[in-house]
């Protein structure tokens, strides 16, 4: 069991996927010769050659369209969009074509496309390169959404995504690239749609993904010192969403705090809150709470972005307010 970075975990998953299945290929801007803007695909060109690891022009519509078309013919494309915010220039291909292709044709095709992209804030990239873009696709049935929060999850979810017969949007948090964690060999394939109980606890259920999961882990550790026991759940995929695991935890703790990086409206966090209010209203011992990003674009300056992005302290405060009433 070695410790690897988030970046290395994805790199290894891609390498193993390419190794396992000839139908898998990678395409994107600067992913081959340069190894990717975040160096996630480093070395794969040398290992697998330019037939399977391909640099493209700056043409995101063409990248996604190519992935769709190739998948229609039985290939398993893994497309990179560098920054998730660039889904803006190919949103139609993702939301109107990829997500609906199988449905509109009455199930004549499968479209096993994986789209990898760097997500989230915290790096000083300003408004157009810092969004938590998973929220843009929640209301589009037909797309699975993976939001790994640790190197091991990144590896497992990537392997599962590439093997899945459905389109998967795969978000890699750009402020987590160097986060380290254990990654054992010979891992079991883990299906998409199963939440992780990152930490067991009894007082409060905290639900968080990606960078907020990392910060929630810190917060939980510090709260443990104050005698508050946090159960931390990472949904790992937002579609499918494992409401059963989240709900069971709420049943146990009676307290819920959702922590997310993005603004509130139309987010996965508000979706989870709403779903629990509908389905498990009586299980709440206190009103639920959320810690989330401000309702503004992401600002550039370090001081402003730090204030924008929820911190471990804010999570600690949120939990305390919840359990102490």
């Amino acid at each position, binding site marked *: 069991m070695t410790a690897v970075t988030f970046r290395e975990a994805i790199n290894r998953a891609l390498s193993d996927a390419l190794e396992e299945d000839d139908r898998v290929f990678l395409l994107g801007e600067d992913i081959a010769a340069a190894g990717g803007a975040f160096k996630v695909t480093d070395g794969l060109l040398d290992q697998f050659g330019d037939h399977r690891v391909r640099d493209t022009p700056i043409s995101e*519509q063409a990248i996604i*369209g*190519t992935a769709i078309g190739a998948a*229609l*013919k039985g290939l398993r494309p893994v497309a990179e969009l560098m920054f998730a915010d660039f889904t803006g220039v190919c949103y*139609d291909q993702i939301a109107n074509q990829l997500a609906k*292709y199988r449905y*509109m044709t009455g*199930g*004549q095709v499968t479209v096993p496309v994986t789209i990898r992209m760097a997500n989230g804030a915290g790096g000083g990239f300003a408004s157009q390169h810092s969004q938590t873009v998973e929220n843009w696709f929640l209301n589009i049935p037909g797309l699975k959404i993976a939001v790994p929060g640790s190197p091991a999850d990144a590896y497992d979810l990537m392997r599962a995504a590439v093997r899945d017969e459905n389109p998967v949007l795969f978000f890699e948090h750009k402020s987590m690239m160097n986060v380290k964690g254990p990654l054992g060999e010979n891992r079991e394939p883990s299906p998409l749609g199963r939440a992780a109980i990152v930490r067991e606890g009894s007082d409060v259920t905290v639900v968080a993904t990606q960078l907020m999961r990392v910060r929630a882990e810190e917060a939980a550790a510090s709260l443990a010192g104050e005698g508050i026991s946090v159960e931390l759940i990472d949904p790992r995929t937002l579609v499918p969403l494992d409401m059963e695991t989240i709900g069971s935890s709420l049943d146990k703790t009676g307290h819920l705090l959702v922590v997310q990086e993005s603004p509130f409206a139309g987010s996965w966090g508000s979706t989870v809150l709403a779903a629990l209010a509908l389905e498990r209203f009586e299980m709440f011992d206190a009103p639920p709470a959320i810690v989330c990003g401000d309702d503004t674009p992401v600002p550039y300056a370090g001081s402003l972005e730090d204030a924008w992005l929820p911190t471990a302290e804010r999570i600690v405060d949120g939990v305390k307010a919840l359990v102490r009433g």
Partner: protein
Amino acid sequence: MIEIRVFEEETQRLFTQNLVRGSTHLCSGQEAVVVGGCSVLRDGDSMLCTYRGHGAVLAMGAPLDRSFGEILGKADGLCGGKGGSMHLTDVSVGAYGSVAIVGAQLPIAVGLGFAARYQGTEDVCLCFFGDGAANIGAFHEALNLASIWKLPVLFVCENNLYGEYTALRFTTPIEKIADRASSYGMPGVEVDGNDVGAVYRTISEAAARARAGEGPTLIEALTYRQKGHSRSDPGKYRPEGELDAWLERDPIGLAEASLREQGVDQDVLDEAHRTAETKVREAVQRARSWDEPELESRFKDVWA
């Protein structure tokens, strides 16, 4: 071609009877392009088209009855009633999809072409789109990528002079869309889109190049939309006499004239019309008799 024409006439009838929902876009007058183009294809090749795709999908060999069934929203329609007129698809005959977002099929065609190269086959992808689509971003990205990767894609622009109700000259600052090929270092060819033989020959040449690994071609087929854009279209944007002039050059009329010249009897041609009418009538009757989809079927096919 005749079958397609009769199919479209029947579709229009169904539409006016309120049996077709949403919009439906007929290809009457443009049959030679799709028939000429699709005849070039062989097993393994693929075809993508637009919401104006009935003709192309039929030309690939989709069954008449299941095509009607889809337009009527029946359980046994090509797509189980989920797609409708704008999304006719029959992958079993190589008709990989009718796309209703203008231009969105072009990048997908690049992928179908790519798969052939990746898999080491000589398959090609034939991709239809309209003159209006040549102004949308996806067109540009698709042609550029297909060219730089030398992919076997035949981009066929059905220039019918209009995008909806707006004439080409108000939206496109050049005369020939085929000339845009030079931006991508690929050949651009114009062809009389109402001459089915000419279309066949032009697209055959492009296909041969594509199969040989020499890359994509942009083909502009000049044709005319004899009907409205969709539904009830007053058509008042057409200059006087334009429609009549094009009706003179009706692709079916032209094909028949050329067959007559080659000595085919008028009887044979009349017989072909009658056969088409019978086949279409029987097909639509069958389709109309089919069941509605089960309501629960709407939850199927979101996920594989």
